[in-house]
């Protein structure tokens, strides 16, 4: 990696870090935190889906695992939340590896892979709703205890900075991946798996590395979600909403580019926020508008309108 590779990321981090200085409105900080958490989940998807071409519809499996591990370990066993957060990331990557191993070894590609991930996420959802240690259907509440040592902050600004730092780390990791041999091989597998194998790419290993890293990032997003909203249930953790969020942002912003997920997440959530304002007497109209805008964004992609947003390959 060269300075040119890293600079834009650091710049982004620095500019974004100024936000809490200028903005104290909870609305905006809350919006920014949620968007950044989704950026992280989306960046996770982007590693596997954007760079690796393995479209997953079940990143909820990783998000939820990260979230539940973070919550369950501290609620049930009193482990420090920072530790449980790391444990969540680790567990999510293990889940990623296992799902990856099972599907890639049996040669699943394309929509088949997408569907198997979807199914895994659903299995986790049904299970987490039924077993007692996740709180079952009643969900899991992380007790309110706003101390920095407890990964809960009196002021949202700190939480924001922490999430931002993690997003910057994810961006740097993605950039490093992009510039590495693994990254090149991953992209090659995306473009043509047979051809990649012919030139010595161990496709299975490459895809497993990707899904593990991918799951770790999305798991981190899950942990942050749990720590921020302090409440989890099976639909939040393993529901399809997060699988969709995770893939929507990178595809809109540019799959397989470092900044794609960030751009996509910002666009999507700005749209969502903007339409939310339009809520009138009749519920649903705002979401209809959101849906129409989504289609329009696909039709007239912002990355085409603003070529410099595209992010260098």
């Amino acid at each position, binding site marked *: 990696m060269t300075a040119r590779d890293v600079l834009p990321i650091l710049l982004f981090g620095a500019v974004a870090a100024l936000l809490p200085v200028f903005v104290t409105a909870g609305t905006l900080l809350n919006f920014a935190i949620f968007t950044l958490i989704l950026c992280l989940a989306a960046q996770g998807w982007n590693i596997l889906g954007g760079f690796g071409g393995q479209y997953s519809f079940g990143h909820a499996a990783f998000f939820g695992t990260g979230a539940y591990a973070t919550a369950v370990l501290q609620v049930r066993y009193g482990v420090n939340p920072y530790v449980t957060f790391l444990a969540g990331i680790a567990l999510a990557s293990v889940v990623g590896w296992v799902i990856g191993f099972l599907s890639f070894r049996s040669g*699943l590609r394309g929509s*088949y892979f997408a569907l198997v991930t979807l*199914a895994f996420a*659903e299995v986790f959802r049904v299970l987490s709703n039924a077993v007692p240690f996740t709180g079952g259907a009643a969900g899991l509440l992380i007790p309110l205890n706003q101390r920095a040592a407890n990964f809960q902050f009196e002021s949202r600004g700190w939480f924001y900075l922490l999430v931002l730092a993690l997003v910057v780390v994810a961006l740097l990791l993605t950039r490093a991946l992009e510039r590495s041999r693994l990254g090149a091989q991953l992209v090659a597998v995306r473009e043509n798996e047979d051809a990649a194998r012919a030139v010595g790419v161990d496709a299975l290993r490459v895809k497993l590395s990707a899904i593990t890293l991918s799951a770790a990032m999305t798991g981190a997003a899950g942990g942050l979600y749990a720590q921020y909203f302090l409440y989890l249930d099976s639909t939040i953790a393993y529901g399809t909403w997060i699988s969709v969020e995770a893939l929507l942002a990178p*595809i809109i912003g540019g799959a397989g580019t470092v900044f794609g997920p960030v751009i996509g997440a910002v666009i999507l959530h700005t749209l969502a926020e903007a339409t939310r304002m339009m809520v009138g007497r009749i519920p649903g109209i705002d*979401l*209809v508008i959101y*849906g*129409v805008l989504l289609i*329009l964004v696909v039709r007239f992609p912002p990355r085409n309108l603003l070529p410099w947003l595209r992010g260098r390959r």
Partner: protein
Amino acid sequence: MRNFPPEIVMEAVANGLLTGAVYGLVALGLTLVYGVLHIINFAHGALLTLAMYAAWVAWAAFGLDPYVAILPLVPIFFALGYGVQRLVIGPASRGEDSNILLVTLGLSIVLENAMLAIFRSDTLSVQVDYAMEVIEAGPMLLSFPRVVGFGVAFVVAAVLFVLLRMTDTGRAIRAVAKERTGAALVGIDVGHVYAVTFGIGTACLAVAACLLLPSFYVNPRVGNAFVLVAFTIVVLGGMGSVPGALLGGLVIGVVESLSGLYLGDSLGQLGIFVIFILVLLFKPTGLFGARA
């Protein structure tokens, strides 16, 4: 595990078959669209909901029996699907698969919430006198609307099968699925074929909706309940395979019914997904092996 008397198990199997056929019909639309557009149609559930509302309106506003409503709704929904593909999905996706995904997603958001705005969130049903009728088959009581659904699903599948195998349109649909340029060069209007496929898929939903309505209900999110099952069926039956979708539907219906009987409906869902995962992992071309 609990032991049920054989007539109960038998009736559970029969119920599974009856319900499964209609699942198969929903899956049929999905498998067809998947086979040609290579993409999972996220709007499938919302379109099913739309069809159910249409059938409901036909009943509530025009007094049309849901079964009779099949006749006008099939062409209407064919046209709707055709138009949606031609005017929305096609242009907006600009030929990229991942874009089609997003567009269908956007479409589902639009449809679902438009229905919420129009029909409100209430759960609606039709009241027809045969809804409660049963057919006594030996010791079993079979719900009349389901028996009808079963029969019609088979007829639709047979018609589609013949259409795809025996007619030029069918061959064109299959040809476009894999080789667009080649198809254009033999004079197939690729955009038209896409739209026809989408239209057929949507028309299948109209039939399914009319079959479901007498014994079911409709609210703005009801379609989603069927989509996940439909995915399972599509995989089980082999993506793009018409007989596979129907057979897959029957299998899933029975599996769901039996696992529901023995494990409870909640965990019974787990049964379906586990089967789903196993099939994907060990026989990804589907149980009824459509050609890869």
